[in-house]
């Protein structure tokens, strides 16, 4: 009957209506980085540069790649990144 879909907030409304992002880490020290190549041309060139800089700072880096940039990442890949990494950098480069 109504076109716009609206829900009523069931909370005490102390948090903003927009969903908040995950809190950023205070320090990068000791964290494992996941570098996710979304399979667009030359993402790898950009990520190679990022990896070099991170490794120079003594950080741990793992590389991942989506099968295609056109679709969202497969669940299995997302789960692997969540288990193996603390921080993820996703590269969009053309």
């Amino acid at each position, binding site marked *: 009957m109504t076109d716009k*879909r609206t829900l*009523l907030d069931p909370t005490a*409304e102390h948090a903003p209506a927009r*969903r908040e992002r995950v809190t950023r880490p205070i320090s990068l020290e000791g964290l494992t980085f996941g570098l996710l190549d979304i399979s667009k041309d030359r993402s790898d060139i950009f990520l190679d540069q990022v990896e070099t800089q991170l490794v120079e700072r003594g950080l741990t880096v793992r590389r991942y790649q989506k099968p295609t940039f056109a679709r969202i990442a497969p669940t299995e890949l997302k789960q692997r990144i969540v288990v193996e990494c603390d921080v993820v950098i996703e590269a969009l480069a053309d």
Partner: protein
Amino acid sequence: MRKLPDGLIAIVKRDCPTCRLIEPVLGELATDQIPFVVYTQDDPTFPATVPDVVADTSLEQSYQLNIEIVPTLIRVEEGREVERIVGWNRREWQEFTGLDDLGKGLPDYRPGCGSKSVEPGISEELAARFGRARLKARQIDLAPLEDEIEACFERGWTDGLPVVPPTTTRVLRMLTGTSRTPEEIVGIIPPNNVECTVEKVAINAVMAGCKPEYLPVVLAAVEAACLEEFCMQGVLATTYFSAPVIIVNGPIAKAIGMNSGINALGQGNRANATIGRALQLVIRNIGGGEPGGIDRATLGNPGKYTFCFAEREHNTSWESLAVQRGFGPNVSTVTLFAGDGVQAVMDQISRTPESLARSLAASLRSVAHPKLTLADALLVVSPEHSRVFEEAGWSKQRLYRELMALLRIPSGDMVRGAHGIAEGIPKERISDQALISKFRPGGLHIVRAGGNAGLFSAIIGGWAASGPRGSQPVTKEIRL
């Protein structure tokens, strides 16, 4: 109040035989000098006798004019309704319009039909769409491709199971279950100590899957949880297993179809399942009590999704929990007990109250730990077990007294280190007592529930901080 056009207004629908019968009458009125507007609810080509019919297929006019029956004829003077008649009564219509020959040849009287604006489930839709804003909760618009149920998960509003998305229509429908106004304050919800309105409880009751008729029970449960003696903050924050167990007494349990019989503590009954869940969602969503946040339970228990049942009050000589707690037998109440999981007691052999009481007492010793006395207990006696007592003339009070006597345990068995177990009561707390009571006075609560077959009862252990230092059971009357 908006201004209406002066003259006469008729509201009709083609689906109504009386409206069809008076089609010529409406035509006569349309040719008269009095200004005349016809709203039609279903078919804008009806009545064919009137040239400028106004379509009210959205039912906005019908809703605003509060139409219950069609046909309705309204007289408006100076922008305000002064009079209305419903159905067809020839003499009434003639007097109302001042046209002596109106409807000549038609039957004297025909009743009208129900207005489309009051069909089941429609009125809340119309109130949500056209009503003046009664609700205060923040409205959250969903993105076009966002799934409603996933949206609730992603915003952290659920207990881990899907919830019913709380739309305005559903919340307005829920609010029809209570006579209280949406803005009334129900209580201060721990752990964040937030003021909670009837409207916010209704939103969470929708999400839990409640019917509107359950709302008074949910509201009473929320009120009870806010009572100082219940100590909801502590029950939530503890590393122990506890959560509110809701026991419903009185006529409302039957009226809303609660289960006190087969599988009373289990799944499958909508009222039992959703009332208990609604209370948990209120504490989570309004109070901010989330697992891993203020809720520090080491293991928790499945009753933290929902734990609610009715006492089986029929075919028994036993007084109900509510009566024992000072309420009349025809008063509906909720009692909250800070409890953990269900421990089975199996005794299929005892046929005397003495033997069965010893069985129950032996099992009750293990609440929290056989060598500790910290926790209350809720004993749920099944009908086959209660029959053993009732046939021997034992009231619930008698069973309570006998169990309390049987649960005076030699202090040598309870002291730390006894039986090669380090846990137990510190020696200095025992001093020279020969016997130690397992439960504090009033710390053993007895209710009756369950199916007809099965010589089993159930023990629901209480919080390790039972009594005045922690949580005490609380009872609230249910107001409709």
